[in-house]
């Protein structure tokens, strides 16, 4: 009864930084969707957990030449070389893994024992450690999502591209005797929450998906591409200084040349 395989996917995101207003809706939507815990006092950002985080970049010039760019940063779901992303390679517990069928870097909190090698390995600071057991204000636990298991103290967590949404979408497809999903059936929470449509999500290998064309733009770049992490989050910016901020460039070296297209 070995089933024929579903066509391999490579889910990824294209984030248009020219459209991002830095409103933070994606961060809020992500926390609500994934039962991300927060503390009473969130002033120490080193201890905050934000699967999706909006960074503020400036061009460093004095007013009136100063420019600002907001950069949302989920997990990059690095493919590395043949799926050997930095965090997957170092995990001693196989608590994090790269799936060749979806291109998603998974995180299994129940397998994780909290050594935090992956956090050290991740160049994007996309991984977070639970220093405490999650505590929600009274009554709020009733609004938690039943599709995402809350994490306990002592384990690492990160963005999963709302993988539970993929599973639920597949459930529906199976019930309708389909194996393949439409583009709109699987979208991450942050994508749908973005009021300015800056985030586009889809299968980077599928020519009919919006991300396929967007990632080929000359304005496209990826963060720290030169490290060879081969991330699946693409950014678009028409501003040269923003693109330069994405990686270390030599003086005079041009940006916008993504070498390893999928």
């Amino acid at each position, binding site marked *: 009864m070995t*089933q024929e395989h579903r066509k391999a996917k490579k889910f990824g995101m294209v984030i248009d930084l020219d459209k991002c207003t830095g409103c933070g809706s994606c961060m809020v939507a992500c926390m609500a969707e994934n039962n991300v815990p927060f503390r009473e006092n969130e002033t120490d950002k080193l201890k905050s957990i934000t699967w999706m985080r909006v960074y503020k970049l400036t061009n460093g010039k004095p007013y009136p030449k100063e420019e600002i760019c907001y950069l949302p940063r989920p997990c990059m779901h690095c493919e590395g070389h043949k799926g050997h992303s930095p965090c997957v390679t170092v995990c001693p517990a196989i608590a994090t893994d790269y799936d060749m069928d979806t291109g998603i870097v*998974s995180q*299994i909190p*129940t397998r994780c024992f909290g050594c935090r090698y992956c956090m050290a390995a991740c160049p994007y600071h996309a991984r977070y450690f639970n220093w405490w057991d999650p505590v929600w204000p009274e009554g709020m636990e009733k609004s938690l999502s039943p599709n995402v298991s809350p994490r306990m103290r002592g384990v690492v967590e990160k963005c999963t591209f709302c993988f*539970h949404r993929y*599973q639920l979408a*597949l459930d529906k497809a199976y*019930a309708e005797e389909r194996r393949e999903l439409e583009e709109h059936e699987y979208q991450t929470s942050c994508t749908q929450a973005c009021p300015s449509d800056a985030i586009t999500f889809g299968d980077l290998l599928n020519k009919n998906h919006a991300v396929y064309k967007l990632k080929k733009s000359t304005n496209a770049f990826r963060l720290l591409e030169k490290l060879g992490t081969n991330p699946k989050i693409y950014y678009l910016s028409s501003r040269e200084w923003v693109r330069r901020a994405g990686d270390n460039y030599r003086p005079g070296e041009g940006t916008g040349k993504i070498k390893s297209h999928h």
Partner: protein
Amino acid sequence: MSTEDENIKEVEAVEPAEDESSRLKSENPGNGIAGMTVLFFTIGFAASLIVGWIVFPNLLYSKKEQPIDFNHVMHMEEVDDGCESCHFFREDGTYSGVPKLDQCIDCHEEIQGDSRDEAVFVEEYISKGKEVPWLIYSKQPDCVFFSHSAHVRLAKMDCVTCHGPIGESTTLKTYEYNRITGYSRDIWGRNPENMLGLKKNTWDRMKMNDCAECHMEETGRKSSVSTHKDGCFVCHK
């Protein structure tokens, strides 16, 4: 000639031996050592098996009876669509699981027959509009994502493969749960053969390894980079 020689040798050999054994006897009960060791080992071994296989599981698992006894056979005779008549899929592909009162109320608005459970069901639950707090034998831990849709709709598996012949039962068995974790014992497997790791039927035990074994055979997926098997993220969340 030969007999004489042997006798002489025997005498020579016996004499020191007698000496030694008498010396040992005075200090220690000689032959008894091995015997006692074997005896104590056997008793200890048997005792630890009894503790490990009978006493400890009984201590570890607490028992609860279902709020109402349910007769699957009787209901199977009444419905047309087998298990899915009551345990159905919703339109979005999610699975309804144990039926809610809404499904029972059509027939059970008034007491049917004269069983005591039926009277309790109608009086305590139906007329009060209170859901029955069924104890779910196969309830998975919070971190597990199980898709009935993928198994029943896509892979066309029978309910019996995992749940066993529940449809042929006339009464509900006692619900046992682990005192420490609170999980149902049925996930772990309860048949005596399971203690030896043996499994006669697919539904005897539904541990993670059993899931993984079937996934290896049936899906043949090798998408995980770390294990070259099916990924953890398929079932875990």
